[in-house]
């Protein structure tokens, strides 16, 4: 007994001594590996070297889903990190967890840190703000879908590589020409639900879900079986049947086909830039995501994908000060501009975008500004601010299943979208109940 007490005492002394001499530690859990992981590590090192009060320790916790699960499990065990990276579809889950997360604006306020919410790009921060306009998490990596074009493949099919691809009607004509010329893979896509339903809806200013896409209440219902969406999916289904649209998988499997030069057109995130630039041995180009001509309000603006940083509850004030300092550092102009240029992710502040422009980056790398323009072309509406749906990761799974039914010709677009809405709504109701 005595021995134990003295050991405890010793341990206590050792830990207090440790914290007294060292800086306050801020734990940051993220989901990045490879090149992105290195860039995050670099940001953290730069921050740690720039001041002596805090030290940020970054840990990789697996992919997006795994990182979120790690955060949840840690919170349940009372071992949560200070900062947790959560992908955009987990936003509603985090927002509903009132006792588990501390809104970013609150962290900044309490720490007395300088924080100008207007400096952030509206359509980026909109995804992560409350209905009264307060930022709940800090956008970290955001991208938006664009159309990638293999110019060599167009030329080979006898099509002018500068041909107009701004609308789906024009894309349709090009696909016909590509197919007629014997192109095996005229078009493919990554992230089908995100691009061809979620973004399609925002871009055409139609709701993806009721209650302002879930922003004004958890009693939201899916509206993805509206005429605009059904017509688009039906057309894609036709193209799939004719071999003009090749389905490669639920995630970004199609990227391999495009980068290898097999596909002429590819709808994918703007953040596909680094990979395509590194691998593509052909002349490629970025175009804005096509829209349907004749739909009123199109093109509105596209919405983002990616992740944001959430601050977890239950830490000391000292740690929150460190968190505030780190988040401010991440959103500072130089860091953001570098991140934007290195990764192809969108800058989160207007100033970072402007700085990149001044540096001449867009002139040297044509097309890298398309995503920014597409996002900021119009002031976001209730339909194009973003999506806030519970169990959304799983709803995307349902949408994937239903879309596969259309691509294989088992279901009509209307049947598939109705079924997706019905099944998704059941999950939304359960989420509503759990968040009560």
């Amino acid at each position, binding site marked *: 007994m005595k021995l134990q007490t003295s050991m405890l005492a010793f341990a206590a002394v050792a830990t207090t001594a440790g914290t007294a001499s060292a800086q306050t530690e801020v734990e940051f859990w993220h989901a990045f590996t490879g090149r992105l992981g290195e860039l995050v590590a670099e940001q953290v090192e730069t921050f740690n070297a720039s001041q002596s009060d805090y030290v940020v320790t970054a840990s990789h916790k697996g992919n997006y889903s795994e990182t979120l699960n790690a955060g949840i499990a840690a919170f349940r065990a009372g071992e949560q990190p200070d900062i947790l990276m959560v992908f955009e579809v987990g936003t509603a889950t985090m927002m509903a967890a009132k006792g588990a997360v501390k809104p970013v604006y609150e962290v900044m306020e309490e720490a007395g840190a300088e924080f100008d919410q207007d400096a952030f790009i509206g359509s980026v921060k909109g995804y992560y703000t409350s209905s009264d306009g307060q930022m709940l998490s800090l956008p970290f990596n955001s991208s938006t879908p664009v159309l990638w074009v293999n110019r060599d493949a167009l030329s080979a099919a006898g099509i002018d590589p500068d041909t107009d691809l701004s609308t789906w009607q024009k894309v349709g004509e090009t696909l016909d020409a590509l197919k007629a010329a014997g192109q095996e893979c005229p078009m493919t896509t990554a992230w089908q639900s995100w691009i061809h339903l979620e973004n399609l809806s925002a871009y055409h200013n139609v709701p993806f879900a009721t209650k302002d896409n879930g922003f004004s209440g958890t009693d939201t219902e899916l509206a993805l079986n509206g005429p605009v969406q059904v017509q688009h999916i039906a057309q894609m289904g036709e193209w799939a049947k004719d071999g003009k649209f090749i389905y490669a998988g*639920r995630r970004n499997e199609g990227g391999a086909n495009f980068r290898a030069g097999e596909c002429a057109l590819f709808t994918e995130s703007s953040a596909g830039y680094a990979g395509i630039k590194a691998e593509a041995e052909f002349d490629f180009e970025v175009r804005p995501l096509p829209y349907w001509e004749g739909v009123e309000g199109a093109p509105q603006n596209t919405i983002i994908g990616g992740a944001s940083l959430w601050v977890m509850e239950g830490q000391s004030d000292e740690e929150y000060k460190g968190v505030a300092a780190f988040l401010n550092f991440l959103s500072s102009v130089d860091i953001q501009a570098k991140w934007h240029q290195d990764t192809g992710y969108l800058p989160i502040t207007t100033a970072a975008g402007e700085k990149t422009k001044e540096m001449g980056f867009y002139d040297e790398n044509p097309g890298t500004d398309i995503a920014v323009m597409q996002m900021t072309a119009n002031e976001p509406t209730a339909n194009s601010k973003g999506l806030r749906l519970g169990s959304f990761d799983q709803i995307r799974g349902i949408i994937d299943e239903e879309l596969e039914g259309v691509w*294989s010709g088992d279901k009509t677009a209307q049947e598939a979208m109705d079924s997706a809405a019905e099944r998704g709504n059941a999950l939304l109701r*359960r989420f509503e109940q759990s968040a009560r």
Partner: protein
Amino acid sequence: MEKRVTFKGIWLPLLLVLPQLLITAVFFFYPAGQAVWQSLFIPDPFGLSMQWVGLGNFEYLLSDKYYRASFQTTAVFSILVTVVSMGVALYLAVLADRLIKGSGTYRTLLIWPYAVAPAVAGVLWLFMFNTRVGVVAWYLGVLGYDWNHVLNEGEAMGLVVVASSWGRISYNFLFFLAGLQAIPKSVIEAAAIDGARFWMRFRTIVFPLLSPTTFFLLVVNIVYAFFETFGVIHTITSGGPQQATTILVYKVFADGFVGQDLGSSAAQSVILLLIVSVLTVVQFKFVERRVHY
């Protein structure tokens, strides 16, 4: 008269089985109890609040036609995996048993795949059948067959069955071979002298004498197909296309760890637990009667 060693009193035997009981309680009964308890609530992911719903989770699940369809998928999948892995293993074991030279090498090579984790096996098979770069898919293309498990439900099911059975064949092979070697040679020789050909001997002597092994493997393989094939499904199809390969255990994972719906996930675990218990009881009650020890 059976010969039994009996203990006097209760304390010594209890003490001897205590470690086993403790392990069972801590690692099996406690989590199972937790699952049953959780299945009666809809909790929020962070454990901040719980809504009592009674049997609501079960009602929700059983009224979902996609969940009900998953039972059929699981049945088809489990039967195929069990039949394929046991059938091939038995065939190989019979061949290995007849080998005189090089049987050691042959056996060792056959056992290797067992050391490969299911998820890794899944990736290996996916790589061979990848619609774009897969070697097998490419040769099939040369033969004029357009392999596409990304959209074709039958092909997807076939691929996960093969990938799940592959590693399992090694395990079953080991047991079958041991079982075959335990059959007294004199019995087989006697039959041979009586003029029974190989197939006749196999059917009337070897297979019945092998039945304890077969029965054991049947139980173990069904449990394997129900629970441990998760890694293969996750790496190859993620349950798709549509829901063609969404087996029950995969749905437990998807609802619990992708959907953060722990109530539904717990209820599914309970249902799965019941199914496997019933299956095992049925096997012991009915199939075991036909087993000759």
